[in-house]
């Protein structure tokens, strides 16, 4: 399912189609040398887009994908290699494989599927690593694949050249494959999985809180991208006719990665830009490599001019445009705004059906020797606003983190009706009807406001009516007119509102707000209070609110609990709590 406006997808696909056809068409009038250069360009472009599907959307740079290209190349080549040649050059091949000879297209399809399976296994293992550790793990993957290819002589001829592969890759096959790959990459970017993955890239903790299982989406993108790499590999194998494991190692990895990075890894526009720029520069510098004459001076032969050129361009790009030449947006996203219109069949905001209470009892949280929360019990009811206050460091946020399964308490239980929440993953909580905001705003800054909220709607309650729910949540918080802005560019108060809208799009029974009024002025705070009251009255949502603004707590809350040094020292109506001597002491100190 695609989350982008139809218009974007249509324009993007049409542009990809026309540009690639135009490139291929123009090339077909050129020389044989130009044709070879362009085939390599198109195949590289598939590879760059393939790596981008994983690295761009997940934010994890991968050095391992050329390994998948290698597997795809060997796999497809083994299937198309003529049987007599196979028996001559690879005598120890298993007989079923030795006797098989397929046409180029079926061999490529099988190779792509095979690599998909391999990637699923590898991705499941690598998926547990985060950030830079994951990047280095992919580096390990490249070395492993290279090592196995060299070692497995019976099948791959080891380090020797694997030859005799029919040269089936023509300019037009490469062009068609490239169109398919680029459109696939573009569609993945704005698929539900791609959008979720980008949300996870921007902020993992917030993504979990709206029900996104990042590891799952990462695995999907890993498989899709590996399959695209296999396509590129098969094309390359049937273009070259002869190759060795060295072809799928560091040199080509760096070449493809430099394209991806210079262009910008999070878009297909960037992949294309990078491939064009690096190919052009390589072609130009290659002419200089063997020495040339400049104004009568003989320039010496400089070995590796292309590498230095590419290196300098990467440095320039990183210093000046760290997100790549194309930036973070596709071209069509820059030119055409998203129309946000009310849903055709306006879905009435779903009132809370389950009248289940959340009961926390005996929560204790120890960080090393420090007891941050000590034996706290509380009950949250739908339709009620519950305030949690206390001096700094009294454990309010820690309690909220335990209730939303971000932290696992040392001791204690949190029950939603009959369901025990402790021990569940934080990405499951949203589907139990608990949504939250964060003390330090955690939006997905590179996604638009609409996407921030939409991804939450798509990832909870089975994603039903996601668009209507997104619209309703944005409308309630008054963010419709900023819906197409990048959420990272909004003012502080607006960012808080988007965070609440995002939580609301999960259609929660219970909404946890961690200092929602921080950074808001008086009017904004009053507006927020009005909104929250309405949520409670109209939808029957229960709200747990942590804040320092005592005016807000007093006016808004039905019940208030006070924490001090990890212990609950009072609970009751705001009135009762205000007059409680222990509370007065905690806030103002003991009177002499």
């Amino acid at each position, binding site marked *: 399912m695609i989350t982008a406006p139809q218009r974007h997808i249509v324009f993007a696909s049409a542009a990809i189609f026309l540009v690639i056809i135009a490139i291929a068409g123009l090339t077909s009038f050129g020389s044989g040398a130009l044709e070879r250069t362009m085939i390599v360009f198109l195949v590289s472009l598939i590879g760059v887009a393939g790596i981008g599907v994983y690295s761009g959307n997940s*934010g994890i*740079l991968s050095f391992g994908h050329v390994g998948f290209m290698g597997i795809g190349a060997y796999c497809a080549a083994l299937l198309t290699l003529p049987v007599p040649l196979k028996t001559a050059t690879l005598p120890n091949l298993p007989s079923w494989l030795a006797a098989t000879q397929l046409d180029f297209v079926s061999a490529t399809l099988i190779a792509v599927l095979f690599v998909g399976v391999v990637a699923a296994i590898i991705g499941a*293992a690598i998926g*547990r*690593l*985060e*950030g*830079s*550790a994951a*990047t*280095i*793990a992919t*580096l*390990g993957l490249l*070395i*492993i694949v290279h*090592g*196995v290819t*060299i*070692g497995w*002589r019976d099948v791959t001829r*080891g380090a020797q050249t694997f030859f005799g592969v029919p040269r089936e890759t023509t300019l037009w096959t490469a062009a068609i494959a490239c169109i398919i790959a680029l459109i696939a990459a573009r569609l993945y970017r704005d698929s539900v999985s791609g959008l979720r993955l980008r949300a996870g890239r921007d902020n993992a*903790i917030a993504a979990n809180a709206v029900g996104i299982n990042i590891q799952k989406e990462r695995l999907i993108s890993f498989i899709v991208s590996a399959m695209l790499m296999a396509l590129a590999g098969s094309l390359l194998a049937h273009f070259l006719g002869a190759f060795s494991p060295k072809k799928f190692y560091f040199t080509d990895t*760096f070449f493809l*990665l*430099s394209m991806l*990075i210079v262009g910008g890894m999070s878009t297909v526009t960037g992949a294309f830009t990078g491939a064009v720029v690096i190919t052009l520069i390589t072609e130009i510098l290659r002419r200089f490599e063997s020495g040339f004459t400049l104004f009568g001076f003989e320039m010496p032969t*400089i*070995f*590796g001019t292309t*590498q*230095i050129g*590419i*290196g*300098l361009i*990467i*440095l320039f790009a*990183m*210093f000046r445009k*760290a997100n790549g030449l194309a930036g973070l947006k596709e071209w069509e996203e820059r030119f055409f705004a998203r129309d946000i219109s009310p849903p055709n069949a306006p879905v009435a905001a779903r009132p809370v059906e389950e009248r289940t209470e959340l009961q926390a009892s005996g929560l204790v949280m120890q960080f090393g020797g420090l007891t941050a929360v000590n034996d706290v019990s509380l009950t949250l009811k739908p339709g009620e606003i519950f305030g949690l206050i206390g001096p700094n460091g009294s454990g309010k*946020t820690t309690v909220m*983190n335990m209730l939303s399964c*971000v*932290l696992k308490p040392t001791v204690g239980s949190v029950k939603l009706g009959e369901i025990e929440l402790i021990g569940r993953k934080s990405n499951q909580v949203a589907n139990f009807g608990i949504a939250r905001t*964060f*003390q*330090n705003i955690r939006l997905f800054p590179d996604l638009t406001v609409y996407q921030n909220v939409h991804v939450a709607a798509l990832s909870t309650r089975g994603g039903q009516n996601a668009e209507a729910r997104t619209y309703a949540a944005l409308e309630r918080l008054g963010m419709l007119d900023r819906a197409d802005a990048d959420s990272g560019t909004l003012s502080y108060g607006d960012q808080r509102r988007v965070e609440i809208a995002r939580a609301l799009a999960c259609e929660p029974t219970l909404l946890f707000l961690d200092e929602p009024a921080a950074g808001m002025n008086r009017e904004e705070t009053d507006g927020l209070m009005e909104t929250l009251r309405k949520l409670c009255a109209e939808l029957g949502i229960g709200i747990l609110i942590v804040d320092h603004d005592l005016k807000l707590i007093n006016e808004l809350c039905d019940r208030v609990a006070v924490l001090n040094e990890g212990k609950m020292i009072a609970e009751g109506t705001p009135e009762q709590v205000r007059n409680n001597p222990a509370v007065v002491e905690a806030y103002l100190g003991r009177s002499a």
Partner: protein
Amino acid sequence: MELFLQQTVNAFALGGTYALLALGLAVVFSIMGLINFAHGELMTIAGYVLMYCGLAGISFVFAVPLALLASTFAAVLMERVAFRPVRNSSGATMLVTSFAVAMILQVLFQNLISVRSQPVLLPEALSGSIMIGGLVIGVNKLVAIISTVIMLIFLDRFLSKQKYGIAMRAAAEDFAVARLMGIRANTVIAGAFAISGLLAGVAAILWVSQRASVDPLMGFTPVLKAFIAAILGGLGSLRGAVAGGFLLGFIEIYLAAFLPPALQEFRDPIGLGLVVLVLLMRPNGLLPAASLKAEKV
């Protein structure tokens, strides 16, 4: 048994070199989140200084400090020129920058020095061997082990007793807070690079003393291994880097010694497979960095 002990000595020598490299990477990573691809080129620089000193007839005793000085200086220079402009960028941006630096340096070595491997003059004593309790141990292996131990002790002292060392540890735990406490970012980062350059220099000397040659890509493979050692130990954790380096050294040497001949060709994949197994059980590495747990929600 004797073979086993012999190989254990080898494992300590190789693991120690990996540990020094991984430690150099970890010192920088823990402070600024950069995985320095160009760390290997620091090694290569130290290697070339040794080579030129040999050609110029400078005694090895003086060549070693010169080589260390060169790699340390090169590391600080590298930070100033290439990494300062991207200091506050994402990890990926910094990693890519360092990868471009590595690429440019490699081509420069190829053009300015030689594409081919160059011999390095080593003192006779290094190639000898001595008998300890029935074991024949190469002097170079022994030197490697002793140097590693000295470096580790020196670094431990520096980080726990010296003002700059403590500042660096503070910066590694929480750079923002360390700066608020009056620790200068430039000083700490330059210091971290100096240490990583020094460690790369020591590793380079140990590496060259086993091989007696240097080429433009000399640093590439060992630093690749050091990357893996660093995640095996726990990225950003200094003790983890040392542990990961030694463990990787042991895995490689024992596989080379005890794997049946038919499987020898798969040595690298099997070794890395073992590393992956360890990581599956401990995704944050053997001794995870403290900063991993500290993220506030």
